[in-house]
């Protein structure tokens, strides 16, 4: 992580998504700022309850795809129509119906690769990246909620601990500095 200053987090562990979701709703309703929730699998609509905006990755994919379409048409038109015009099968130099397959494939290729690259960059994922794990069991069977204490100056640590316990954490909330 870029900043060297350590933040103090309170980590709550949940056993079940059906406890987690109401807890997220109510903790947020109480005005507590949740730093992030870590889950072993995609919990349906958790991002909505956490107040995240809908991802714009699909729009990025569309832009990459359309770039692929135009590049493919330009490439084929240039190569067969201008760089070395050649009559093939008695047809025109530039035969757009015959360009459809390659154009389609390059559209899909650029859209897929572009979107995946955007996904990796926006989530700071890549070979050699280190994961920040509040609890290693969040990749197994636990749902881990991290609350940044510095972002919740309204509440004391005890108050947040009490709130977490009230809404069904399965173990005593623990502190973690990162």
């Amino acid at each position, binding site marked *: 992580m870029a900043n060297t200053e350590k933040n103090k987090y309170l980590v709550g562990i949940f056993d079940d998504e059906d406890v987690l979701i109401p*807890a997220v709703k*109510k903790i947020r309703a109480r005005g507590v700022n949740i730093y992030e929730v870590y889950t072993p699998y995609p919990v349906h609509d958790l991002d909505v309850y956490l107040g995240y905006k809908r991802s714009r990755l699909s729009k990025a994919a569309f832009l990459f795809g359309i770039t692929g379409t135009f590049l493919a048409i330009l490439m084929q038109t240039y190569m067969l129509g201008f760089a070395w015009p050649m009559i093939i099968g008695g047809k025109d130099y530039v035969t757009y119906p015959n360009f459809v397959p390659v154009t389609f*494939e390059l559209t899909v290729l650029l859209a897929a690769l572009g979107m995946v690259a955007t996904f990796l960059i926006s989530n700071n*994922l890549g070979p050699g990246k280190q994961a920040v794990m509040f609890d290693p069991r969040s990749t197994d069977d636990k749902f881990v909620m991290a609350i940044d204490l510095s972002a919740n100056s309204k509440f004391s640590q005890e108050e947040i601990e009490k709130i977490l316990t009230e809404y069904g954490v399965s173990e005593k909330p623990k502190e973690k500095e990162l």
Partner: protein
Amino acid sequence: MQLTSPIREPLVGRQIHDENRPTTYHDITNDICRQVEAPPNMRWMAAMAISLIVLAWGSYTLYRTWFFGIGEWGLNKTVGWAWDITNFVWWVGIGHAGTLISAILLLFRQKWRTSINRAAEAMTIFAVLCAGSFILMHMGRPWLAYWALPLPNTYGSLWVNFNSPLVWDVFAISTYLTVSLVFWYIGLIPDLATIRERAKNPIARFIYGLLSFGWDGSAKTWARYEMVALVLAGLSTPLVLSVHTIVSFDFATSIIPGWHTTIFPPYFVAGAIFSGFAMVLTLMLITRYVFKLEPYITVGHVESMNKIILLTGSIVGVAYLTEFFMAWYSGVQYERYAFVNRAFGPYWWAYWTMMTCNVISPQFFWFKAMRRNLYVTFALSIVVNIGMWFERFVIIVTSLHRDYLPSSWVMFYPTYVDVGDYLFSFGFFFTLFFLFAKFLPVINMAEVKAVLKSSNPDSANSYSEEVEAVVESDTSVKKEIE
């Protein structure tokens, strides 16, 4: 009288190897990670050894092919395309199931795909690599394979011919391979993170750490991950249909009687799904047995796949009959002869093998008892793939071996190099598959966990009384805040 629809089977079975109790999230992690973490067992070593022996023999014939040229094959002046292209089309077809399962079934919300998609996608990638190896083999001068790409070159600027289906093939197959690989790997990242967090050996932890790209499983990452999976599925759906369509153009755009058919694209795609599912079943039934994955690959999964085999097998059957009807209806004597020769000429045995394996054998799956019988399924999955290999052989060789000039009518006889090159692809395929099965999780743990609860009412991760109290107090808390 009233018909009650049966309750849907749970997607995850009980822990039959451990007191038959309900499966929990932690069981899923343990069961799938077990074979990755344990040292390789004897069964795996034996399977790997056999694959490597086959691969070694295939490598020898591959050496003969590349250093002495394709004259080593049984090709002749009339039949200029035979086993190589048969194998190519066969492998590409097999490579259709993985992306179909992960993309089309995702769009159709078929949750049963979750426990088979990982292995099916891996199989897809390896099958497409095998298909690609036949492209390289039949080039004669494989070191010039890059000539198929539109690269600037020393001959002025002479480019590839974008009017040619063979060039479309290069783009289709390489795009398909790349996108399938990316789709597969994105799905692997969360599970690799699980293995990383469990790893005790520092080397394993380092390697899986590198491979898992620093995945932390935060809600934001998951939300974006789901978006990526959805869009990739949307992109892959037309892609998977386009690949075999373009492969079929290799034949359909020619003017050879027997190949010059507009029905080829849908017919090839159905055949591809048919053979792909059969191969998935063959591999999954073995994997299920060797790794004790019965709770995850249930009889219900096998039945669903058998239904798809029945559907696509019947589509293929209709296509065979339509081809015959169109040959007669076209009134073209060459077209008619090509089909009469196909069924009753010297290759009649290949044709009737194809008909028996592809059209008759899947009809057993009309019966529920057959669909749910693992032995029948395993046997038929192999029969189907034999049939599909013969389908390609029949289309390719019987259409070529008797052309317009009876003086050049010949038979095609494969040499040991033809056979060896085919074995090479088997060795290559199974070596990669066994390596995958040993070092990577064969089932998508995260996705199975995601369907565990909704599909299994008796799952161990169900409500406790305290939780219900919390959920019920939801409304009272809201009032309190207000």
